[in-house]
């Protein structure tokens, strides 16, 4: 009866089963959060104190009707042509050289009847109350894409890097503070070259 002295060994054979059970529970309950999207600032509700007069040629009007058809600057266009049109409008740089608005980095057509400079150009999106949200997001995505294309072009020229990469690194909380400081200047600089001016008009109702 010498065996009695030590405590009997507990069988660990079922350990794997228990662990499996827990594992499956966590596998099933895990959800990978979707936490990315299009950032947008809404206009404040108080109207600005002084009325700003904007020239018609500096506004790129995008209208979206309830069937998902798109009217850009008075022309019926396809969704996949929108980016091209928006880019051409933003990059136009129509102001004559020597004027304060002259844009020396624009590579557009310099059409006098289109926008003066990227800083003046405004894109206005108007949608119907019955427009599908998915279509609206596509339009927003294309317009943001147009800005990003132009910003990337300038960032490549000045810093040999894409703007979107720089911005992502700048916004990443794991980036070093010293690197961030450096990136902040660059991001700001590019943003000043092509400021994002997307205005959202109130939706209209199709009945009137």
């Amino acid at each position, binding site marked *: 009866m010498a065996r009695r002295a030590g405590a009997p060994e507990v069988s660990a054979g079922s350990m794997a089963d228990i662990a499996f059970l827990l594992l499956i529970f966590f596998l099933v*309950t895990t959800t990978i959060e979707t936490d*990315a999207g299009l950032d947008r*600032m809404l206009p404040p509700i108080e109207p600005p104190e002084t009325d700003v007069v904007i020239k018609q040629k500096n506004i790129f009007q995008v209208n979206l009707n309830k069937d998902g058809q798109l009217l850009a600057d008075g022309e019926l266009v396809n969704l996949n042509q929108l980016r091209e049109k928006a880019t051409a409008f933003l990059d136009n740089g129509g102001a004559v050289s020597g004027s304060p608005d002259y844009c020396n980095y624009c590579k557009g057509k310099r059409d006098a009847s289109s926008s003066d400079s990227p800083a003046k150009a405004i894109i206005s999106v108007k949608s119907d109350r*019955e427009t599908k949200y*998915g279509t609206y997001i596509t339009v927003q995505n294309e317009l943001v894409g147009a800005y990003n294309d132009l910003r990337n072009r300038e960032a490549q020229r000045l810093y040999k890097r894409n703007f979107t990469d720089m911005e992502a690194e700048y916004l990443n909380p794991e980036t070093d503070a010293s690197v961030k400081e450096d990136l902040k200047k660059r991001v700001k600089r590019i943003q000043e070259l092509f400021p994002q001016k997307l205005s959202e008009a109130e939706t209209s109702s199709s009945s009137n």
Partner: protein
Amino acid sequence: MSKFAKKKDGEVPAVSTASLPDIVFMLLFFFMTVTVMKDSSVKVANELPQANEIKKLEKKDRVITIYVGAPTKEYTKTFGTEPKIQLNDKFANPNEVGDYILMERAKKSQELQNVLTTSLKVDKNANMGLISDIKLELRKVNALKVNYTTYEGDAFKN
């Protein structure tokens, strides 16, 4: 009779499973650490649209989420099939959005209150009328930073 004659031919030795619990535990800990428990269940159809020019929403503690979509099957009887707004755990009207935002904002710590983002998780089949009502409410309470939360993908498939 030699010493080694006991071995029978063709018998495969059993693989030891002693390390199986270790492997499983390793996996278990991995999933335990990455799991985020949802604080509210989504009661609306919520298939987000796709976009590719997206930015990540860093720092979850600075985000207030609003769900919009048609009520799921078990709720269609009571709430119908028209897209609805879901705040926390209940359905709401557009005019309740402002109060909800103010309430959520008050829960956050002082230094975060000015940097909050409102994440709009809207089903892609919802219509813009409801969204613009929400946007108007958000502007009324000065919650101007919004994020149209989307999946990453081809925007033309929406």
